[in-house]
């Protein structure tokens, strides 16, 4: 392992020097939010110092500069995910908003009573609730690909759940609660055989592997900046242009129209017709710097490194007789949920924090997964590129400690 490379990387993140309760911070909640490198913090600060002005509006210098940087970010993310055109990359506030946009602007106009929406049992609430709301409003049916005990989806049921009434398949690439990597190639191939478009929730996968939307051939992909070492308040919805062109905006406001009178409105072109109102300009510009940061890294090395970290802690946890790891999916990564015998997840979380360790405890916005395993809450750790084996050893120490303290 190239320790120097990781040490250098860690030094780029000021927050990793933080002391929590006299202990160095060990941050293991990267599935919820990733930390932000200094160059991104500087970019955000520089935006407010040098170019704070609304985009696409002014003829003055500040507005021209902020517009340029704003659109530069769009071009950078287009290249990063290999979209066909920048017009296919719509700025939203997060993955959740991207899913709501597709639900309301693509699915709703074509959804009739009795039509079907297919999701899976392993989804984050953000890929359940928008569809639930839409199905209830339109009298449509929400269908669910079931989960197996291993934590894999039951692919044998998948094709039988599709029908001529299925209007969309919306599925996560990687489970945020137990780390399952779903076989989205299979899902997309089979769905396309029936001409059903597929939305991929890429929130957890965007830093798991190289995402190439053209190769993946998904119809929509949603991601969040705050899970890729960028600022919060920014996400991207990628959609195939042929679909986006047909869609009707669901949020109205400034910048998304060409002409307004009280009888008729002409929508703006893509991608602006979906970006109503003043966007999170500073954060989007800082997100551009986040992509510069990612492009400066040896990502192939880091994908492998994160997997090694995962295997390291996974084996250690499996060896502990009082720890039960939830699920054992065929392909998995970065995220582990576990329970400790006779110790409530929140008690463990408070104890871990006392020793500087940030772990997630609770249902991880995936109550259907918890209920499947008959659990109320688990401890979840999720890894970032900057985590180390030494940090994970400390987590294991705290598990031993917790057994002494709570007995």
């Amino acid at each position: 392992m190239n320790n120097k490379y990781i040490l250098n990387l860690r030094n780029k993140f000021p927050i990793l020097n933080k002391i929590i309760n006299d202990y160095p911070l060990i941050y293991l909640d990267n599935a919820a939010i990733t930390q932000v490198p200094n160059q991104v913090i500087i970019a955000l600060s520089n935006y407010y110092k040098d170019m704070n002005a609304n985009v696409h509006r002014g003829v003055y210098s500040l507005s021209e500069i902020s517009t340029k940087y704003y659109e530069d970010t769009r071009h950078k993310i287009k290249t990063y995910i290999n979209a066909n055109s920048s017009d296919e990359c719509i700025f939203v506030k997060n993955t959740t908003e991207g899913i709501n946009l597709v639900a309301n602007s693509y699915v709703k106009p074509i959804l009739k009573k009795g039509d079907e929406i297919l999701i899976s049992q392993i989804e984050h609430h953000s890929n359940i609730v928008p569809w639930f709301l839409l199905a209830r409003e339109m009298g449509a049916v929400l269908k669910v690909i079931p989960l197996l005990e291993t934590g894999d989806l039951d692919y044998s049921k998948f094709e039988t759940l599709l029908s001529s009434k299925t209007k969309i398949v919306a599925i996560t690439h990687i489970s945020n609660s137990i780390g399952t990597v779903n076989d989205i190639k299979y899902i997309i191939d089979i769905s396309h055989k029936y001409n059903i478009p597929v939305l991929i929730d890429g929130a957890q996968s965007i830093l798991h592997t190289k995402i190439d939307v053209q190769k993946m051939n998904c119809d929509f992909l949603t991601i969040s900046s705050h899970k890729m070492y960028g600022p919060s308040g920014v996400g991207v919805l990628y959609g195939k242009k042929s679909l986006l062109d047909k869609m009707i905006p669901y949020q109205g406001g400034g910048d998304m129209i060409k002409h307004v009178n009280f009888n008729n409105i002409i929508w703006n072109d893509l991608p602006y017709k979906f970006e109503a109102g003043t966007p999170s300009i500073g954060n989007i510009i800082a997100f551009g710097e986040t992509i510069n940061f990612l492009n400066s890294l040896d990502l192939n090395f880091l994908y492998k490194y994160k997997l090694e970290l995962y295997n390291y802690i996974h084996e250690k946890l499996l060896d502990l007789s009082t720890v039960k790891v939830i699920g054992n999916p065929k392909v998995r990564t970065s995220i582990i949920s576990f329970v400790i015998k006779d110790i409530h997840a929140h008690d463990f979380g408070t104890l871990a924090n006392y020793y500087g360790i940030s772990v997630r405890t609770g249902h991880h916005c995936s109550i259907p997964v918890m209920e499947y395993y008959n659990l109320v809450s688990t401890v979840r750790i999720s890894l970032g590129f900057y985590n180390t084996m030494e940090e994970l050893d400390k987590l294991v120490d705290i598990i031993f400690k917790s057994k002494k303290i709570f007995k």
Partner: protein
Amino acid sequence: MLDLYKDIIIDHGNNPRNKYIMKDYTHTFNGHNYLCGDSLIIYLKIYENNIKSISFSGAGCVISVASASLMTIVLKNKSIDSSINIFEYFKSIIVSGADINEKFSNLNVLAGVRKFPSRVKCATLIWNTFYGAVNVNK
């Protein structure tokens, strides 16, 4: 750390008092902590505005179970009105950090929760459940 997980709290968390399902209750309520999914049920036998018997069931963390155990000890044989006043006192010491009244030593052991804002809901779960029982079943 010891501010929160004092020996007495661990003791009540691991060996809670009055944790059983009461058959002949007059009031009951199911309380949920939606943050973690924990749920506790309270059972009360109330005669002439006095709590003659009190118990709880369910599962929770050390803090929520210890708080429930200690509450049952404190509220037994109290009137509803004074129980509500004690609830107000309990909230005041763990939410707003009010002064400690030595009279309530069984509750004051939980005062350390005030330094752990994310755990306040654990300590108040059973109290809110109690409040639900006496109000809903009025």
